[in-house]
């Protein structure tokens, strides 16, 4: 994963709440077995409308998405993060995120910045006044700056550290190999195993 410390780029004001991951990427695009090439699928339903904000010329090189509350709710599909990333987004700002989406974002180097709703409205006002203006998101200082406006954002310390360092979770966990093996030594015999395959003693239900 690449390190992130600051991102400067065009911010898109997406004045919608409850943007579920089915809207970010419809299920029909989840059939692919690759991890890239999802940029065309991003907001596919909404992009059929020529007036949709991402279709406007000022926002073609967008890096920062500024959305209403409850962004990324619903399905666990990590494809939502991949699609945002493939389109060019490096930061998503909302006042509330779906838990699974936020987790997925952190694993893939997409910064999910939690900003108070009043401040999101202020950012919207600033960037709507000058469509295509760049904003700066500073992960070290935990701030979003747009023109004269600077507002704070929240992100948990651990995710911030991993993003700043560009660290891979699996590598970190494998350092705990001994503790995992030790835990497995004491796993009770009644706990489930899928192998060997067993047949029911009698018809269930």
């Amino acid at each position, binding site marked *: 994963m690449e390190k992130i410390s600051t991102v400067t780029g065009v911010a898109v004001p997406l004045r919608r709440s409850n943007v579920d991951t089915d809207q970010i990427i419809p299920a029909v695009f989840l059939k692919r077995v690759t991890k890239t090439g999802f940029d065309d699928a991003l907001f596919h339903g909404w992009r059929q409308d020529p007036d949709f904000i991402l279709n406007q010329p000022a926002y073609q090189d967008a890096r920062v998405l500024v959305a209403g509350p409850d962004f990324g709710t619903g399905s666990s599909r990590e494809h939502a993060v991949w699609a945002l990333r493939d389109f060019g987004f490096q930061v998503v700002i909302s006042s509330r995120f*779906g838990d699974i989406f936020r987790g997925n974002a952190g694993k893939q180097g997409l910064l999910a910045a939690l900003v108070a709703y009043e401040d999101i409205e202020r950012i919207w006002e600033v960037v709507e006044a000058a469509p295509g203006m760049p904003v700066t998101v500073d992960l070290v200082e935990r701030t979003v700056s747009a023109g004269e406006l600077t507002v704070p954002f929240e992100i948990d310390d651990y995710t911030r550290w991993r993003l700043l360092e560009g660290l891979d979770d699996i590598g970190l966990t494998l350092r705990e190999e001994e503790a995992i093996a030790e835990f497995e030594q004491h796993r009770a015999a009644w706990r489930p195993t899928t192998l060997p395959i067993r047949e029911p003693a009698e018809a269930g239900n």
Partner: protein
Amino acid sequence: MTASSERPRTLAEKVWDDHLVKQGEDGTPDLIYIDLHLVHEVTSPQAFDGLRLAGRPVRRPDLTIATEDHNTPTLDIDKPIADLTSRTQIETLRRNAAEFGIRLHSLGDKEQGIVHVVGPQLGLTMPGITVVCGDSHTSTHGAFGAMAFGIGTSEVEHVLATQTLPLKPFKTMAITVEGTLRPGVTAKDIILAVIAKIGTGGGQGYVLEYRGSAIRALSMDGRMTICNMSIEAGARAGMVAPDETTFAYLKGRAHAPEGDDWDAAVEYWKTLPTDEGAEFDAEVFIDADALEPFVTWGTNPGQGVSLSETVPDPAAIDDQHERAAAERALEYMDLRPGVPLKEIKVDAVFMGSCTNSRIEDLRAFASIVAGKQKADGVRVMVVPGSARVRLEAEAEGLDKVFEAFGAEWRFAGCSMCLGMNPDQLAPGERCASTSNRNFEGRQGKGGRTHLVSPLVAAATAIRGTLSSPWDLEQAVTEAEAK
């Protein structure tokens, strides 16, 4: 955590504590051991690729099981899958399972089905374990008193490689449902009412524990319906404390413990219910006596009301986001404020999905439609959750009931719950669906979804407009006679 055993703990805290491989320090997450990892074709290919690239094996194939459900057709399952990208994804899972030594139940196998139906029916889902799957409806398995939650593909790879996940502890919320459901009101109506009450974001960061007399009275199938939709309230997981209903369901299932292991398990499982005096971070109360059949009118699962009401007027909603969302939802759903919900005509009825496709759901649907004819012009699909549920239903003759009614009786899979396989709504079509999400385009581009219980789906299929068994005199009599 030995220290914490001194103070009263919730069910969720007990399961968490018993899976701590390493406690986090200085803001780092805890490392949690995963007892059971369920895999399907959609969210796993990139995870297996990641393992291959890093040269890592699957740490515990014996704690991992895969099935094919999202992409699979529910007709002509003996023929090659027509959609090439779907076929590629299924074939990729088969290759990955073979390469990494993972048990797979493929289309045509008697244990194939929706991943959240397969785990419980095999007896793999049990109290006090941790369950993950690259699917948000993994919360279903919490009905057994397991800690079960959906994860993304990066986490799927993480679990395959390490059998653990780094996690911050969740907060706990008690959802207490007291009283007795009236005939015609079901587990689905409880959970739709809960989501309407706390909102689609109300559960974020929480594990919900469903408690109270109305929950205790539910079967395992009903409890699974409720836990399944915890994610629609934003929660990672939902749980119900294990009890005799849980033990009776598990006993004798293929992978349930046997002999001394069974006795040891039950002894442990009985220690799991939340201790007297344990504190929840939040509490919600629902009066079961007052519940009516419920239906959604909008495009998120929190936009629901009792079926006896009218389409709400966005102008009457105080919160500006809720109001804007309601306005957009009514436009998408092509509905006007003030219209009685019972006057809304549907084009299709979908009976299925990981929320409502178990044998009891099919029995409930059959109890209403038996001996009747579906409304003219309404397409009715009945899709069992697993191949085993299909066999069981056929052994009881339910397939004959459905076919005589005019419904299509299909093979197992996710089907019309999500627009990913051939079962989809056409643009503009309206569907009463027993599934879990009414998002824009969820059941097919431009499709309109009303989430309902199996009983409401059945009554709607008969009348052609959103209806409950209460609208069918005879059905009410039958339900009361039960």
